[in-house]
């Protein structure tokens, strides 16, 4: 593999990411399964970097998951999106940062459709006024939260307490980066690095001393597939696609996986558990799996946040081997505590994976 070839492509896909003053919109899945990741994002951007990231309790889901499960029509999702944009303008912002990749893709798609069909935009603006009494507005810039962390990767790396380096060997950690499909597959120019060799996560990994593993099924979907997961009868699809990725990355022995989509880390974590339970196979060392992190968790570890404050205990695949490699001190006794040190028991151990 010729690294310079990728660098050339990366240099061609550098989107504009404003430095400051963002209207922040959360992700349904990230809030449900990785709430600490959103907390870490806000802590890093607001406290460590001193940025203005505004959130209002009045924003809602973008409706993307319902839309991609074909539960609601396109006009509905577009109006919900218009409502989010209108809230942004109402609070005096023009830069929009969202936590969800499905949302990000949908925003890009919606803006493109409005651009191509102004009559539709007009109709949505009218519906927005009729239903919410809000004035139609469009953001000047839309970025995904991972774009913003990418934008500040070197500043964050300068504050790092830990590097993505194996403290025992001195070697860079081998990282699989998994990009959510809707980040740039529909609109390559909207993603840092484009669709084929996205750089948004790779850039963070490199800035923090790690090395990126490129394996054959790198671009393949995690297998979420919306309805393909929500309906139990379809879950074989979802499981099988993740399996395909793990089989492909196995020979590279990655130390961990980092993701920018909220759904992918859930699936790539939990399907390892199911594969282990059903087939006995695990992909990490010994009976361990490969830890799957959100980019906020990865950067949080680098910045020295407590792994259990970052929520790594809510992953099924244990992060301990990674923490050990990074030389991060952690207290196993605190892992499953509730707030204020409350004892809330601990999960049962899976039979085949740690």
């Amino acid at each position, binding site marked *: 593999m010729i690294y*310079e070839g*990728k660098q050339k492509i990366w240099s061609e896909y550098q989107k504009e990411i404003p430095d400051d003053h963002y209207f922040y919109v959360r992700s349904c899945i990230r809030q449900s399964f990785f709430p600490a990741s959103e907390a870490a994002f806000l802590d890093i951007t607001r406290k460590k970097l001193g940025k203005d990231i505004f959130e209002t309790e009045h924003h809602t889901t973008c409706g993307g998951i319902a839309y991609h499960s074909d539960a609601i029509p396109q006009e509905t999702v577009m109006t919900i999106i218009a409502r989010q944009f209108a809230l942004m303008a109402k609070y005096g912002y023009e830069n929009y940062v969202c936590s969800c990749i499905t949302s990000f893709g949908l925003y890009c798609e919606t803006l493109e459709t409005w651009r191509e069909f102004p009559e539709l935009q007009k109709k949505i603006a009218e519906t927005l006024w009729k239903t919410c009494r809000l004035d139609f507005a469009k953001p000047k810039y839309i970025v995904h939260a991972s774009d913003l962390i990418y934008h500040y990767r070197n500043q964050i790396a300068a504050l790092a307490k830990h590097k993505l380096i194996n403290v025992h060997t001195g070697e860079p950690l081998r990282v699989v980066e998994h990009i959510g499909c809707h980040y740039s597959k529909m609109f390559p120019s909207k993603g840092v690095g484009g669709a084929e060799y996205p750089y948004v996560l790779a850039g963070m990994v490199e800035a923090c001393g790690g090395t990126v593993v*490129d394996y054959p099924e790198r*671009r393949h979907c995690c297998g979420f597939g919306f309805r393909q997961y929500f309906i139990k009868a379809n879950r074989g699809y979802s499981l099988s696609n993740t399996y395909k990725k793990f089989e492909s990355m196995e020979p590279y022995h990655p130390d961990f996986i980092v993701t920018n989509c909220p759904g992918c880390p859930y699936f790539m974590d939990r399907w390892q558990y199911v594969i282990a339970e059903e087939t006995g196979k695990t992909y990490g060392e010994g009976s361990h799996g490969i830890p799957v992190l959100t980019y906020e968790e990865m950067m949080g570890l680098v910045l020295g946040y407590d792994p259990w404050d970052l929520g790594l205990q809510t992953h099924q695949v244990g992060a301990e081997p990674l923490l050990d490699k990074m030389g991060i001190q952690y207290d196993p006794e605190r892992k499953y505590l509730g707030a204020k040190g409350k004892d809330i028991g601990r999960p049962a151990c899976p039979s085949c994976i740690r």
Partner: protein
Amino acid sequence: MRNNVLIIGGGPAGLEAGANLQRLGYNVLLVEHSNTLGGHLGKWDRLFPGGTPASAALDKLLGSMDGVKCFTDTEIQSINRLGKSYNVILSNGITVLADAVLVATGFDLFQAEKKEEYGYGIYDHVITNADLELYFKTGLDTRINAPRKIGFVHCVGSRDEKSGCRSCSKVCCATAVKQACEMKAAFPDAQIYCFYMDLRMFGRHYEDMYLEAQRDYGIRFIRGRVAEVSENIDGSLSVKAEDTVSSKPLKVSLDLLVLMAGMRPSVSGQRIGSLLGMQNEKDGYFEVLSEITAQQRSSIPGIFLAGAATGPKTIPDTLADARGAATQIDKYLSDIFPKAKDLKQLIKTAW
């Protein structure tokens, strides 16, 4: 006094037109921006359908150039209409008054790295058709290492709106079949695949070449465009396509992948076009006065076109086009600059 004709571009079209115009009695000046004559032909090893050595064809063209003045490493600096003629200033300081100009600026090979998902310039064993020709000529290319499984990807940068080219590059199908057979001959144990969408075997003997490739060389033709290439841990390539005949996605590991990079309008030609104020069509190639009856004429009087400057062409197409251009130029010059004997004739008729 003999008329001056300026030819811009020293590839097959320029050479063939130059030789013919010289024979017709004109003063021909050929200007080539690179340091050698022959264009892409000079970089090719063998030509389809019969496997004629490219060097033999080029030698033949160069051998007929007696008397044609050629400037290599020379650019056109300016070109302006002056009366019936064109005043042309060259980068070597020479000024020419040309009574007719032939634009034979050819094509550029599509930059295969732009088709990002194929990984040219990123994966260790992905090469282009041009790289393979150079390998045939020199036997040198570290990317080619006793391959046992080889793939050819048709339509790279052709018939692809995402890489800015909707049209067919015409020569790639036949080139792929030719190169596939040559590779089989070079590596008899290799299994070779061609991934195509439509096999455009339009020329005489081309279909025979296709049949031979199937029957005698055992080349497997798979109808499906390659969607994605990735590199395996051992450096081999993993290629994905649909076998549209079976309606199923397909995967194969290969040791070498050859991209049939198509033709794009040449960048240097674009520059000449803008100096002349010549129109391009949407596809970037020069507009001709009539696609059917005046292929070698531009819309500007005295400016003629030949070869791949007006769209993808095979070598014989190009040579025929160049001869056509020579005839057209001859006709134009004798109409616009009647010679002495013509003048006598004219007077006779007029009086």
